[in-house]
């Protein structure tokens, strides 16, 4: 019943190799685009498809592409964001590991549309084994005439390079990624100018997520109109969901946008229901940055309608009662999970990953981690809950990049929906073991 576009052939033995990929219809989109379409026509199909960026923000891809500046004589770049570090998200890794040529083909077709002669895939450094897989696929693509000079006799030249990160979540933010790719610290840039005008090496640049670029392949093959027949309203096509936590079958699922959340959690072709007979308590639906929702609100909107896996339905009710699809990192918690402790892991994460440029984010995330640590240590007071609320409110909207908001929202939503749990923990002077954090780099270097 579900239609698969990206993972249609993922179970074909040997699909990671060029020969098998090609024999199963691989590189057809590149062939079609380069031989029969103008670059503008490819952009038009992507616009028609309604595809929205799969990296988290959900910005329409066709529109982003049409913003790309095209001054004479200045190179343009496509940069693939494979930094995948949002807690709860592991779909891009799965795609690159199992069907790497889909990304290479998508890079080629997209680069043709954008007029980019060089593109980079920025892969998080911890995924070195994935880099090896991509390097191999790229070498095969060169060998078979899909990369390099005069590709398949069309006159189009293109080179793809893989670039490793080195452990920094912030480098997933597109301007931090570009800084990092230029060999600098991953400090996000102030926008504008946007990368579409001044990106990599001050040249016009498009940054897209792995899954977004892969989705260009079926869009060009079948046409944008066909793609947007899948899904509901402005949530078109399929989406990769990374499912983890207290469920029977964690993993990556390609869903048609519009599947009810309840079906996604409980049906056998997705998560397979709860891990044990403990009940569903809460879900973080789109990666650590999005608001956590309690069971009743994730399954149904406040109008009593079933919540669907779409950008709009998950956001229904705003932040008061809704959340976001984000990167599709779907973390499920049963009644044994402490929302307070979970929040501590997120807050520690944002503190660790803050680049430190803006004081609300740098100081605020550190302070929130400390307060949560103190609460878990059995020394919290009721006023700490209000203090947490106050700090997150002062971070949100006051920073250079959205990491500040991403650190604030989990705190706000945990208090909004689970305040009694914080109060109970504090009033009981309960204690939960916290592993002490020794991972900060020393400031001094040793010879």
């Amino acid at each position, binding site marked *: 019943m579900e239609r698969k576009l990206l993972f249609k052939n993922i179970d074909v033995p040997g699909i990671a190799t060029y020969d098998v990929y090609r024999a199963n219809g691989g590189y057809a989109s590149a062939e079609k685009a380069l031989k029969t379409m103008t670059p503008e026509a490819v952009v038009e199909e992507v616009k028609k498809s309604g595809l929205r960026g799969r990296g988290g923000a959900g910005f329409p891809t066709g529109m982003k592409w049409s913003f790309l500046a095209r001054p004479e004589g200045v190179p343009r770049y496509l940069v693939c964001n494979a930094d995948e*570090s949002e807690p709860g998200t592991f779909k891009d890794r799965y795609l690159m590991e199992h069907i790497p040529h889909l990304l290479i083909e998508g890079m080629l077709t997209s680069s043709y549309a954008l007029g980019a002669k060089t593109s980079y895939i920025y892969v998080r*450094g911890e995924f070195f*084994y994935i880099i090896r897989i991509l390097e191999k696929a*790229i070498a095969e693509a060169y060998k078979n005439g899909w990369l390099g000079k005069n590709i398949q006799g069309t006159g189009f030249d293109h080179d793809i390079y893989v670039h490793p990160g080195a452990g920094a979540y912030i480098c997933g933010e597109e301007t931090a990624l570009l800084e990092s790719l230029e060999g*600098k610290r991953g400090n996000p840039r102030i926008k504008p100018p946007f990368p579409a005008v001044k990106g990599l090496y001050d040249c016009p640049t498009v940054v897209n997520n792995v899954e977004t670029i892969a989705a260009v392949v079926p869009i060009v093959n079948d046409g944008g109109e066909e793609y947007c027949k899948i899904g509901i309203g402005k949530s078109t096509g399929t989406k990769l969901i990374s499912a983890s936590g207290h469920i029977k079958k964690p993993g990556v699922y390609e869903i048609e946008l519009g599947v009810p959340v309840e079906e996604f959690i409980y049906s056998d072709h997705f998560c397979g229901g709860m891990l044990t007979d403990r009940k569903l308590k809460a879900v973080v639906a789109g990666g650590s940055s999005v608001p956590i929702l309690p069971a009743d609100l994730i399954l149904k909107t406040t109008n009593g309608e079933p919540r669907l896996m779409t950008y709009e339905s998950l956001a229904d009710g705003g932040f008061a009662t809704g959340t976001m699809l984000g990167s599709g990192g779907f973390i499920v918690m049963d009644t044994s999970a402490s929302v307070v402790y979970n929040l501590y892991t997120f807050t520690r994460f944002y503190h660790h990953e803050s680049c430190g440029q803006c004081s609300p984010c740098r100081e605020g995330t550190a302070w929130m981690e400390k307060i949560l640590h103190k609460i878990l240590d059995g020394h919290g007071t009721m006023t700490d809950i209000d203090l947490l609320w106050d700090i997150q409110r002062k971070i949100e909207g006051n920073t250079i990049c959205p990491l500040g908001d991403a650190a604030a929202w989990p705190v706000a939503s945990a208090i909004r929906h689970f305040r009694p749990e914080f109060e109970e923990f504090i009033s009981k002077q309960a204690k939960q*073991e916290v592993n002490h954090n020794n*991972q900060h780099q020393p400031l001094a*270097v040793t010879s």
Partner: protein
Amino acid sequence: MLFSDKTEALMRQIMRRYPEGRHKSALLPLLHIAQAESDGWLSVPVMDRVAEILSIQPIEVYEVATFYSMFQLKPVGKCLIEVCRTSSCWLRGANDIVAHIEQKLGIKNGETTPDGKFTLRTVECLGSCGTAPMLQIGEKYYEDLTFEKVDQILEENKNRDNHSTYLSKTTFQNHE
């Protein structure tokens, strides 16, 4: 000589992936290689040599090396164990895994065993949340961990003759 001729040649080859005048872009890959060549950590002389190769100031290397969590600025054990303990891994028992390793090795998170064989570190989400709990040693991911699996991993790594590092040099292939 800090790096072999072969390694320096590889470094120069990677620099050619970036446009003329933009060779500083190669800094992260070069530091990864340098670290792999230098017992898994970056000393000041090693970083200075990388600066020389890239024709940039040493401070430009230090400021980057201190920013990214995969670069070690002090010596580490032969086997660097990195355990994820962010939400999804925590939900599936990561704290118990950390405690188990601490007990087995007799060290705390962040420490190195006196014989220099193991360093234990906790890290944030490694993009392996669906196969939690998990840990990384060098390039390798160990997933769906149990205490038995952890014991086996420790056993396998107790007599390593080289440092676990994130890459082997074959990772970078030549396209030219």
